[in-house]
């Protein structure tokens, strides 16, 4: 019989990409990112015994990972001065070993310029989540998610055009 620890590791193994992608989107510094991933895993581990299947496991993971990341991001943001948008893209390019191609860097650069809530919404969208699940994770109504998504999409589109890809 599987222990709870094994079951937890299995769930994490299946969904670890989500955790790393969220951590990557909210934290640029590789050392801080390790701390953030650890904190997310710790909070998931603590909450795991209470998990019930009212929500899908991915919804549960997204909620915890995003809540921890947004709080971490807001704490970090007040500690470190935010740099200019352009510089952010360059730093991402220099710092990240995980995403080496140019388009990924640009995409992360755009995401980085969004506020913490919109950032969460676009991550969920890019992960292929439907508006209903995004609404469940975020605590918005479905119509609210659609409105916000349209705004983010047009912001992203105009950014892409301005870079002239």
């Amino acid at each position, binding site marked *: 019989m599987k222990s709870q620890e094994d079951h937890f590791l299995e769930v994490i193994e299946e969904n670890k990409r989500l955790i790393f992608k969220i951590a990557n989107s909210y934290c640029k510094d590789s050392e801080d990112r390790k701390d953030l991933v650890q904190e997310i*895993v710790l*909070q998931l581990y603590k*909450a795991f015994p209470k998990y019930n299947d009212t929500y899908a496991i991915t919804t549960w993971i997204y909620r915890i990972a995003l809540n921890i990341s947004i709080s971490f991001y807001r704490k970090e943001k007040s500690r470190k001065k935010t740099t200019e948008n352009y510089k952010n893209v360059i730093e991402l390019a220099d710092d990240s070993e*995980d995403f080496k191609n140019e*388009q990924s860097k640009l995409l992360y650069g755009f995401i980085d310029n969004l506020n913490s809530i919109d950032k969460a919404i676009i991550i969920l969208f890019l992960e292929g989540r439907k508006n209903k699940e995004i609404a469940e994770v975020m605590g*918005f109504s479905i119509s609210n998610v659609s409105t916000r998504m349209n705004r983010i999409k047009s912001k992203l589109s105009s950014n892409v055009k301005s870079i002239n890809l």
Partner: protein
Amino acid sequence: MELNELISIWQSGDAQLENSLKINKKLLKEVSISKIKSYLVEFKLSNIIEIFVNSVFMIFLMNFIVNHFLVLKYLIPSVVLYIIIAGSLGLNIYKLVLFYRINVESSVIQTQKNIERLKFFEILDKNALYIIIPIFSTAFLIVMAKAILNFDLYQFGNWLIIFTAGSFVIALVIVFVLKKFPNRNLQKAATFLKEVTDMEHDK
């Protein structure tokens, strides 16, 4: 670039992430025993200590009020102290309630609102202390001198008047400074709280 392309770029990151993915029993053990310095944990501890200290002080004050009920010169400062401490205790309890309402499994908006509200009251409480302490100090000295040393501080009437006046001036200066240079973190917390609430009602 189309949105579909953005999605495929995003998803192509999966393969590149593979090398850095190491969530295993070792990490699990590390995180379970590591004391992650979360501001929320520090907050909880300091708040519980404050509640304990304030409760003990309120019991002491209640006892002092009962013993000096008919002596107006001691009754007034002890009642002033009692009101200040009761207010502070009420705020501490409210903050603890907010703390226990925070649940990382809840929706992002709800959790972020609770965290930010808690942060807001925490900073507000600290700011209020700068003003309360000078006002609090005269009453505190009169009550403690009487309770611990059985000493009547009113004997030094002139000194007491100057001290009280000085304390009020200090409090006024602090109010002015706080208004002129409001705490940035408090403003940030309030702004974020407003943003999140607005987003929630945005249709």
